[in-house]
C-alpha cells in the first residue's frame, strides 16, 4: 500500500511569515497525527484527528498553529506567524482506527527552518 505522503520536504521562511504543510494519509486510516520533532528530541504530538474530528489538540499553540482535516482524508497544518523556535521537522502519521495494537505509519516529514 502507498505510504503517508507529506509536502513540501523542506521549507525555509523568515520569522513572522506564514507556512502550510500538507499530509495525505494511507487510504482508509481514520486516525491522523501531526507531530513536531525539534532537533535532538522525541516527537511531540501537536494534534490528533479521528476522521475529520479533533481528538486531542492540547499541545497545539493555538495562537499561531491551526490544522484541519478535510473530509476525513487529507490534512493541512499551518503556522502564522512563524517564530524562530518553530524550526523543527513536522511529521504526519496515520493509523487504522480498529485495534489499539495497530501501528502508526509515518511520512518523511517536512523540515522547517525559520530564519
Amino acid at each position, binding site marked *: 500500500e502507498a505510504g503517508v505522503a507529506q509536502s513540501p520536504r523542506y521549507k525555509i521562511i523568515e520569522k513572522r511569515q506564514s507556512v502550510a504543510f500538507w499530509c495525505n494519509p494511507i487510504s482508509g486510516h481514520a*486516525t491522523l*497525527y501531526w*507531530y513536531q520533532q525539534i532537533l535532538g*528530541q*522525541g*516527537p*511531540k*504530538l501537536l494534534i*490528533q484527528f*479521528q476522521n475529520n474530528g479533533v*481528538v*486531542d489538540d492540547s499541545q497545539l499553540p493555538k495562537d499561531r498553529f491551526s490544522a484541519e482535516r478535510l473530509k476525513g482524508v487529507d490534512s493541512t497544518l499551518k503556522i502564522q506567524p512563524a517564530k524562530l523556535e518553530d524550526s523543527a521537522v513536522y*511529521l504526519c*502519521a496515520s*493509523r487504522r*482506527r480498529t485495534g*489499539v*495494537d495497530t*501501528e*502508526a*505509519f*509515518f*511520512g*518523511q*516529514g517536512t523540515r522547517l527552518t525559520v530564519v
Partner: protein
Amino acid sequence: AQSVTQLDSHVSVSEGTPVLLRCNYSSSYSPSLFWYVQHPNKGLQLLLKYTSAATLVKGINGFEAEFKKSETSFHLTKPSAHMSDAAEYFCVVSEAGSYQLTFGKGTKLSVIP
C-alpha cells in the same frame, strides 16, 4: 496518563557486540508498546510491537524486545550490532482504549567499527 522514559540518550557499541536500549513506561491501562527507528533524514520505521500476546517480541533486522509488566519495562536488544543499526530509536506507548501515541526522548545508537 501514559509516559515513556528512555534511560539512555546515547549508547555506543562495537560492531558485532550486543545492543541493549532501555525503556520504561507508565500506563493506567493495558498498554501497547512499540519501538521505532529513525535513520538520518529518514522517516520513522516500525521495528516491533507488543500487543498483549507473547511477552517476547521479535522484530525486523534481528531486534527483539521483552515486555516485563512487573518492571514496567520494554527493553530492545540485538545479539550482534551491525554498522547499519546506527540510528535514533524511539520507544512509544499507546494505552488500550486510546489512540494517543506517546514517544520517549529517543536513544541514539552509535556503532563503532
